[in-house]
């Protein structure tokens, strides 16, 4: 262990500004939802401030890293940090998968009169449980007309995202072997695949609202559909932004063959997003 060289940064203004900016987003969004449009400027300012602060904060970190202030121990701290952060994200999605399984396995059959909790059927005696749930128990709620076939756009998106994980791995191997041009090209390819995924997902959302009747208000199917694919999509967007900034650093000549944790952290995140999608494709679209 290389004691004594562990870098402890001097004071920094980014953390407290980041907190204030996050507070502005939350206060603005709350005001928008509860009191109306007055919240929009606050929220937008907060969002821009978060982006600005993150940029400046990461700039400091990159500068310190390139000045050689970080030792192997620092590298391990970053690795533990990123690893546990991704674990927290896994648990975030676990809550949503748990919701989906609970609704499909327990809540809907019980509403249909099945098993020990079947008294719930007294509420809506005509209700029949099914998945995808096209006819919610209460007639006031308009269910979807039909659902997506998993073997069209969702399959295309699956192939895109899985390929993007492969292209990213090729880029990583290129970086490790010192083929920087290869790394740059394959990383660019990964970013393009991520962008395609987001575009197709946006098109699917458009279809959902205009032709399929799958909306947030369309009962539990629409709710779980948009909750799960929506938060996944948000993560793909964030992941793509991360990859673009990593690409920028590769172009600028950052990273060495054996010291490029930022690249690896981005790759971990991207693979995690990919794995979540496999779960979504399986349980939201196919089964």
């Amino acid at each position: 262990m290389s004691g004594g060289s562990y870098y402890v940064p001097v004071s920094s203004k980014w953390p407290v500004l980041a907190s204030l900016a996050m507070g502005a987003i939350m206060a603005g969004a709350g005001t928008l939802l509860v009191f109306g449009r007055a919240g929009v400027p606050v929220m937008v300012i907060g969002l821009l401030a978060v982006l600005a602060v993150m940029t400046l904060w990461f700039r400091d970190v990159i500068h310190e890293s390139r000045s050689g202030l970080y030792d192997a121990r620092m590298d391990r701290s970053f690795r533990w940090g990123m690893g546990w952060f991704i674990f927290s994200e896994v648990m975030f999605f676990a809550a949503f998968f748990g919701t989906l399984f609970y609704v499909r396995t327990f809540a809907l059959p019980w509403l249909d009169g099945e098993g020990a909790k079947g008294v719930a059927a007294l509420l809506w005696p005509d209700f029949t449980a099914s998945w995808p749930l096209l006819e919610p128990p209460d007639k006031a709620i308009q269910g979807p007309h039909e659902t997506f076939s998993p073997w069209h756009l969702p399959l295309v998106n699956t192939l895109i995202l899985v390929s993007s994980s492969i292209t990213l791995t090729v880029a990583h191997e290129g970086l490790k072997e010192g083929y920087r041009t290869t790394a740059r090209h394959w990383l660019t390819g990964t970013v393009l695949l991520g962008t395609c995924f987001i575009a197709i997902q946006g098109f699917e959302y458009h279809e959902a609202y205009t032709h399929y009747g799958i909306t947030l208000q369309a009962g539990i199917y629409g709710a779980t559909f948009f909750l799960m694919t929506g938060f996944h999509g948000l993560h793909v967007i964030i992941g793509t932004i991360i990859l673009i900034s990593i690409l920028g650093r590769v172009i600028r000549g950052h990273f060495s063959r054996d010291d490029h944790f930022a690249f690896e952290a981005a790759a971990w995140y991207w693979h995690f997003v990919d794995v979540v999608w496999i779960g979504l494709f399986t349980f939201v679209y196919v089964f």
Partner: protein
Amino acid sequence: MASHLPPKSTTQHSQPATAGVASQAHATPRGIKRWLLTTNHKEIGTLYLVLSLTMFFVGGLFAMVIRAELFQPGLQLVEPEFFNQMTTMHGLIMIFGAVMPAFVGLANWMVPLQVGAPDMALPRLNNFSFWLLPVAFTLLLSTFFMPGGAPNFGWTSYAPLSTTYSPPSTTFFIFSLHLAGISSILGAINIIATILNLRAPGMRLMDMPLFVWTWLITAFLLIAVMPILAGVITMMLLDINFGTSFFSAAGGGDPVLFQHLFWFFGHPEVYIMILPAFGIVSVIIPTFARKPLFGYASMVYATASIAILSFLVWAHHMFTVGLPLVAELFFMYSTMLIAVPTGVKVFNWVTTLFRGSITFEPPMLFALAFVVLFTIGGFSGLMLAISPADFQYHDTYFVVAHFHYVLVPGAVFAIMAGVYYWLPKWTGHYPNLRLGQWHFWLSVIGVNLTFFPMHFAGLAGMPRRIPDYALQFADFNMVTSLGAFMFGASQLLFVAVIVMCIRGGEKAPAKAWEGGEDLEWTVPSPAPLHTFETPPDFQPRQH
């Protein structure tokens, strides 16, 4: 062990930074900017502790309102709607604002000192974690001034009370909880990285002080369940503002789903609030019994077992919601299993005391009271775990008595024990021991007067979260209220002790307590701003 007690030369070059004087080399900002921009684990720890103490009084004020209203039957002081806001905000503020930040503050101060690290692993992130909290609680407390008032559905926020029938401010409550949750997750990541990566050379995991061990496991719990809370309150947000039907059976959802998700977070959450307390007590009792901790390894394994079991018991909060019989049985037995590792811990604490040379300074008094009173709370928990019996106890004051016994003379007493124990290290002065003893005895009498009669009121059928009650509960409630006022008032003594200790008092040496054997007692008191910039020589002790 006495051979390496005097402060080692490793800390010498940090001396100019003592007592907050800015060291020239680092050009540390002064005044308010010093606290806003700091990346130092000791300063951030202090910030956490000050925030926690402030929130303890805010939440305490709400409790006083509750107890004043319940002093006599009938509606006297506040509207029932406001009473509901008081119970809700009391719970939220005490859990997320007082107890959790206090433990994070203690971890910030003491984990790097106890493992021989120069700072937390990610110091800027550490500052970010802290400053999210004042923002979050400003947002949360601002809900009092909104139309419809603050959240009024209890801290558990059960749907549909928290969705269909909630006040408009619920959206702000959700966002403030998101901020607090992000803070907790990032703080926990930092603590894990520090413990796993920055230990002094030669310190194996099984050499770590128990406070560090319990925090490692607590941090894991935080990272595992705070995202679940984030998920479930996001679904609340969507139900309220975007017309989804997660918790509405009309659209195929289920209000009980809310309870499952909430308690999957909520049960590990209660262990998040008690495991670091176990750690503090496990450090203090050996110090003042002047004996090594009995059963160190079994303590570690018991803590880990409790953490694992905490994921398998959540539905014991929901016995009366209409669970299938098999679930009632599973969650009853799994809950009872927790008594085993907890019993191991109590046994170890008592056995550590056995034939020790015990002295009764305030930290030890609070730690001993913890062992006795937490055990009472544990036993009432065992009663509540019996599913058929819980049908009687559920949502009565018996439950209120149970969780206050584990949280007030449990978690809060452990925090106070920790504060008294480490104040000499933080300030360089001993706390006023006489005043500390007064604080202890008034607190321990007040706390029992408050919460013990609640058992009887609850068993006799008094429901929780009500502003008025039947006449037969009048005597119990009056005693409870008097005890609560006594406990509340005696906390002013605590503030007095802390302020006096910061300003002066008997000088404390590096090893402030005779029996203190962990690494923090090898650095000077007060601990200089930067410690262990070169790692200390760590000599493992035999456990």
